C-alpha cells in the first residue's frame, strides 16, 4: 500500500514529538522526585534541629517528664506537615510519638541512632513503624553538653510520591494539550505543503524536474527564462550554443540578460511589459534569430518571461529547399512547353527547306543563355548566387522580362558582413519585386537592370526596373512588415526582411524613381563589418 507524502509527513511528525515528550516527561519525573526528596530532607533536618534546641523540651527530656513532653510536642506537631515527630531518650526509647501515643516506652525502630547519640544530625530513609520514610534526626543536649535525647522528624515516602505524582499529572495534562496542538499544526502544515506542490509526491516532483531538464536540452530552439527583474533563471543548451556562450548554465543563472545578450529593443523592459511577440526577427550577439517572448503570471503577479529563439539560417535553408522543389516542378512544365514550340518552329522551317534559318534558330536558342552563363560564372564566385541569378534570369525570360546585368558586376570573394543566405534572400527578393513590377505593365517589357559589385569598401546592389513604380501612398512605409502591392503569395515580407538584414549589417538603402518610370533600389553595405563565425549546430548528437 502506498502512503501519500502528506500522511507520511504527518505520522512522522507526530511520532517524533511523542517520543520526544515521553523522554522529556520521564526525565522530568525523575528530576522532580529527586528535588522533592532533597527539599523534604532539608525541611525535616531543620525542623528536627530547631525542636532539639527548644530549652523547655531539653529540660523535660533530661528529666523524662513524659506528660509534659507530650503536651508540648502535641502543639508543635499540630503545626508541622511532617508525617511523624518522635522524641526518644538517650537509650533509644520513645518519649513521644505524634501518631502512636502507645509507643511511649518502646524502643525506637530503624537502628540509626548511634551517630545521633554521639551528637550528629542525620538524614536517612528507613523502614519505621509507619513504613518507609525519610527522616531527619537531631540530638538533644542538656546544659552540660551531653546527649540526653533524640528528635526525629519524618516524611513517609508514600506521601512524597503522592506529591510528585500530582505535579507530574499536571505536566502530563499540559503535554497532552501540546500534543493535540501538534496534531492540528502538523495536519495543516502538511496540507499546505501538499497544496503548494500541486498534490505531487516527492518522487513525482523529482521526475518532473528531470523531465523538464531533458525536454529543455532536447529541443532545437534556444530557451531562456528570466525573472521579473530580467535575471536569467533557466537557459538551455541550444540557447548557449546559438549564442556562443561557453560558461555552464549554473554560472549564467542569476545574471542580467543584458550582460549575456547585447542590449536589443527586444529585451527592453517597456517593450517586454507592453506585449508578447511571436516570430520577431532580431539580432542576439551577431546572430540573426527568430524570437518569441511570452510573459508568465502566477496568482496575478508577473513572474518573468520565457524567450524562445531559432537560428534564422536554419529556417532560410528549409524554405530554400521548399522553393527549390517548387522551382523544379515549374521548370519542367515550362521546359516541355518550350520544347514543343521549338520543335514546331523547326519542323516548319525544315519542311519549307529553309535550312540556314533552321540552323540559326537552333543556335539562337542557346546563345543568349550561354553568354549569360559565361558572364555570371566569371563574375560571381558563390555557386549559390550563380544558381540564383541564372534561375531568376531564366524564369524572368519565360515571363518576357529580361535581366540585364551591368558590365561592372563583380563579387569574387565571400562577403562577410552578410551570410550567404541573407545575401541570396536580399537579391532574390529585389529581383522578384522588379520582375513583378515590370510584368504588371503591358508588353513589351523593359529589361530589369542589375548591378552587384563588391569594392574594397562596400557591396553595392542595385536593381532598376521600369515597371509600375512605387505608389506615393505606401512610399514611406515600404519597409514595414505587411506593406505590399502584391495580390498573392507572401505579403509584404520581402522588403521588411531586406531592410532588417541591411540595417543589421550597417548598410543603407536608397529608393529612387527610375526614368521614365519604375523604381531603383540601391543597397550599400560596408565591407568592414565583422566576420561572423557560426559553429555548426548539430543538435542531433
Amino acid at each position, binding site marked *: 500500500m502506498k502512503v501519500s507524502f502528506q500522511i507520511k509527513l504527518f505520522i512522522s511528525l507526530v511520532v517524533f514529538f511523542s517520543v520526544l515528550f515521553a523522554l522529556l516527561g520521564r526525565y522530568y519525573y525523575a528530576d522532580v522526585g529527586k528535588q522533592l526528596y532533597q527539599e523534604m530532607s532539608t525541611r525535616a533536618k531543620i525542623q528536627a534541629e530547631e525542636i532539639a534546641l527548644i530549652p523547655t523540651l531539653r529540660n523535660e527530656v533530661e528529666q523524662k517528664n513524659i506528660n509534659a513532653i507530650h503536651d508540648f510536642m502535641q502543639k508543635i506537631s499540630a503545626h508541622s506537615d511532617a508525617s511523624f515527630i518522635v522524641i526518644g531518650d538517650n537509650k533509644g526509647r520513645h518519649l513521644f510519638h505524634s501518631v502512636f501515643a502507645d509507643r511511649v516506652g518502646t524502643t525506637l525502630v530503624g537502628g540509626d541512632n548511634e551517630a545521633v547519640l554521639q551528637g550528629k544530625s542525620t538524614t536517612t530513609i528507613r523502614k519505621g513503624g509507619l513504613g518507609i520514610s525519610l527522616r531527619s534526626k537531631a540530638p538533644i543536649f542538656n546544659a552540660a553538653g551531653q546527649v540526653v535525647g533524640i528528635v526525629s522528624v519524618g516524611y513517609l515516602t508514600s506521601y512524597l510520591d503522592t506529591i510528585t505524582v500530582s505535579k507530574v499529572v499536571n505536566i502530563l495534562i499540559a503535554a497532552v494539550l501540546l500534543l493535540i496542538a501538534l496534531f492540528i499544526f502538523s495536519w495543516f502544515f502538511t496540507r499546505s505543503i501538499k497544496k503548494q506542490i500541486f498534490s505531487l509526491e516527492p518522487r513525482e516532483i523529482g521526475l518532473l524536474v528531470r523531465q523538464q531538464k531533458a525536454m529543455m536540452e532536447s529541443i532545437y530552439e534556444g530557451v531562456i527564462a528570466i525573472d521579473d527583474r530580467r535575471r536569467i533563471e533557466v537557459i538551455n543548451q541550444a540557447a548557449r550554443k546559438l549564442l556562443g556562450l561557453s560558461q555552464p548554465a549554473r554560472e549564467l543563472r542569476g545574471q542580467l540578460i543584458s550582460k549575456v545578450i547585447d542590449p536589443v529593443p527586444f529585451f527592453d523592459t517597456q517593450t517586454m511589459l507592453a506585449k508578447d511577440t511571436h516570430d520577431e526577427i532580431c539580432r542576439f550577439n551577431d546572430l540573426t534569430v527568430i524570437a518569441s517572448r511570452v510573459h508568465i503570471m502566477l496568482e496575478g503577479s508577473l513572474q518573468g518571461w520565457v524567450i524562445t529563439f531559432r537560428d534564422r539560417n536554419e529556417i532560410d535553408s528549409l524554405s530554400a529547399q521548399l522553393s527549390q522543389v517548387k522551382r523544379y516542378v515549374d*521548370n519542367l512544365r*515550362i*521546359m516541355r512547353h*518550350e520544347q514543343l514550340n521549338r520543335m514546331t518552329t523547326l519542323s516548319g522551317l525544315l519542311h519549307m527547306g529553309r535550312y540556314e534559318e533552321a540552323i540559326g534558330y*537552333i*543556335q539562337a*536558342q*542557346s*546563345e543568349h*543563355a*550561354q553568354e549569360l*552563363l*559565361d*558572364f*555570371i*560564372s*566569371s563574375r560571381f564566385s558563390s*555557386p549559390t548566387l*550563380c*544558381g540564383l541569378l*541564372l*534561375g531568376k*534570369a*531564366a524564369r524572368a525570360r519565360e515571363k518576357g522580362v529580361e535581366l540585364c546585368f*551591368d*558590365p*561592372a558586376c*563583380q563579387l569574387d570573394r565571400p562577403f562577410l558582413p552578410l551570410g550567404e543566405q541573407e545575401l541570396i534572400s536580399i537579391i532574390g527578393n529585389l529581383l522578384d519585386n522588379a520582375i513583378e513590377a515590370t510584368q504588371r505593365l503591358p508588353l513589351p517589357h523593359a529589361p530589369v*537592370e542589375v*548591378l552587384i*559589385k563588391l*569594392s*574594397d*569598401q562596400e557591396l*553595392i546592389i*542595385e536593381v*532598376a526596373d521600369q515597371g509600375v513604380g512605387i505608389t506615393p501612398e505606401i512610399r*514611406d512605409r515600404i*519597409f514595414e512588415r505587411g506593406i505590399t502591392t502584391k495580390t498573392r503569395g507572401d505579403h509584404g515580407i520581402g522588403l521588411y526582411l531586406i*531592410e532588417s538584414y541591411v540595417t543589421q549589417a550597417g548598410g*543603407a*538603402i*536608397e*529608393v*529612387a524613381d*527610375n*526614368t521614365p518610370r519604375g523604381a*531603383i533600389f*540601391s543597397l*550599400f553595405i560596408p565591407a568592414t563589418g565583422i566576420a561572423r563565425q557560426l559553429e555548426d549546430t548539430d543538435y542531433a548528437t
Partner: protein
Amino acid sequence: MQHELIDVLIVEDENELAQLHAELISKHPRLRLVGIASSLAAALAELESKQPQLMLLDNYLPDGKGITLINNPMLARANCSVIFITAASDMDTCSQAIRNGAFDYILKPVSWKRLSQSLERFVQFAEQQRVWKIVDQQNVDSLYQLQAKNYRQDNGSKGIEENTLARVQSLFNDKATHCFSVDEVVSETGLSKTTTRRYLEHCVEAGFLTVEMLYGKIGHPRRMYKRSAV
C-alpha cells in the same frame, strides 16, 4: 614536334547526338575518340578501362545525372577533365558543375562553334600542361585563363568608356565643392540612372570621388558624391 593524341570519352544517351559529337572529335587532328557511353554505369566502366583525358558529359542519362560523375574520385585518379553539357533551362546544375571543377559547360541546343572552341582550348590547355615541366606562377595563371570561368576575358572593360568617364568627371572638376546625387548627375549628363551609378561608383573606387550619406526621412537616405580632396 610529334604530338600525343588526347583520348576523349563521349557520355551521351542520345545516339544521333553522340555520333555527331564523335564526328566532331574525329575531325580534330589532336583528339582521339576512345569510347561512347550511354549511361552512368557504362561511363564509369569506360573511365576505368580507357583512362581518357577528356570527357564530354551529358547531364540527363537513363540511370542518373551526369553531374554526379563530376565529384567522382575516379575522375581525379584518371586525371580526366570534363566538358559538361546540359539543357539551357537547367542552369543551376551548370553553375554547380563549374564550381566542382568542370573544364567547360555547354548549353543545349549545342552551338557547334562554341563546342569546337572549347575543344580547341582544351587541346591548348593539355599541350601547355605537357610542355611546362617547371610550373611557375605565371604558368599556373595562364593555365587557369584557359578554364571556362575566364572564357570572356573582358577584364578592364567593366562597361567604362573613356569619353563618358571624362564627361562625368568634368562635372566634378567644374564644381569641385558641390555634392551631387545620382539624379543631378543624370540631368547634367543625360545618361541613364543605372549607367550613371556605374560611372560614379567606378570613380569612387578609383579614389576620384568620395561618398556621403545624406539622411533625410528615416529609411530613405541619399548617397551624395563629392570630389575627393587632393
